[in-house]
């Protein structure tokens, strides 16, 4: 099982690396933000996998905090950062 956890974690990390393309590409701010949200969810999964691999409760706490804080960032984005016109940053 250990091997599976680690391999899956690796797979998810690779997944995340691919998702970075969306952050870079945009085109809108919201698209980038979406990708960041994806990162958050993926990171929670990776953390839980690593936690299970290490039988570490602390890592689950990290995942919990992650899950909560990702929402805070997103709300901050919606409420604050997204006030500029969408056409602003088309590369």
């Amino acid at each position, binding site marked *: 099982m*250990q*091997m599976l956890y*680690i*391999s899956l*974690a*690796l797979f998810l*990390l*690779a997944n*995340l*690396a691919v998702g*970075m393309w969306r*952050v*870079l590409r*945009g085109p809108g*701010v919201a698209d*980038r*933000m979406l*990708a*960041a949200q994806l*990162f*958050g969810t993926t*990171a929670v999964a*990776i*953390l839980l996998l*690593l936690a299970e691999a290490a039988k*570490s*409760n*602390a*890592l689950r*706490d*990290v995942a*919990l*905090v*992650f899950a*909560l*804080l*990702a*929402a*805070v*960032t997103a*709300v*901050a*984005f*919606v*409420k*604050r*950062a*997204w*006030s*500029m016109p969408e056409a*602003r*940053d088309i*590369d």
Partner: protein
Amino acid sequence: MEALDFALGLFDILLVFLVLSLAWLVMSSEDLFRAIVLFVAFGLLMALVWVRLEAPDIALAEAAIGAGLTGALMMAALDRLSSVKPIQKVAASAQRKQLSLSSKVLPLIALVLIVLGLGYALLSLPEIADGLTPNVKENMAQSGVKNPVTAVLLNFRGYDTLLEMVVLLLALLSVWSLGGERKLSPRSTNPILGSLCRVLVPVLILVSCYLLWVGADAPGGAFQAGSVLGAAGVLLLLSGWHVEQKYLLWPLRFILILGSGVFIIMAAVLLLIQGGLLTYPVAQAGWMILLLESAATLSIGATLAALFLGGVPKSRVDQ
């Protein structure tokens, strides 16, 4: 076992590559928002790095701050920046032209040299070094807690933490001394946001308390708890939070200084009783540390939320 190590090694290398390229992209992005989002992602991955380095305490703090609060802070700043000056992009591209080749290439060479030099220095460090691990282990029994990181933070090097609390307060004082009051934003009319906050805020508070409690025995502690509490505050501020003006004067200030204040008073009392700065009696160390941590959590949370607001808070309803 070999395969496992190989997979972990691959994981490490991919993670290092990702973190590094994120950092580079943050620096090279012309678009500010893109840089910020990349930075948030950078924080996320840093938390994973901490996990890989067997530093769950830091991973918790990074998860709350690096991946959460800093991003929120930056986005809020960007928002206000663009409200002052709507066309950031023009200014940015205008500056791009001014940057000559030499002003970019020379620092780049310097960068490579620094990396090489420091890398050489690192590689010439001894392979195995215990640092202070044996000293910490030896004295854990007298520290009053079971989590070595908490023992270092609140007991062995508690004086540093006292001063760090002052640093935190100073950052806020400096922000406030910049002048300008910030009115609390009006209550959001968005029902979805409202209900999200209604759920998240209590959970954040619970998690904060949990981290505070668990810090004595396992990863967690005042700083992580405070950061999560701060996140709750930020969420409340974002969703519109009505606080009466009278609470924003000295009750708020009281909470803000509670952490450093209790620390200082505790230090002074222990100086009188034990004859040493922050010298806890072994039997009482546990609850004293918990008391300090509780006060610190409240202060950290309040300070971070107030920092997010970025000015002296003012109730929306004034007379």
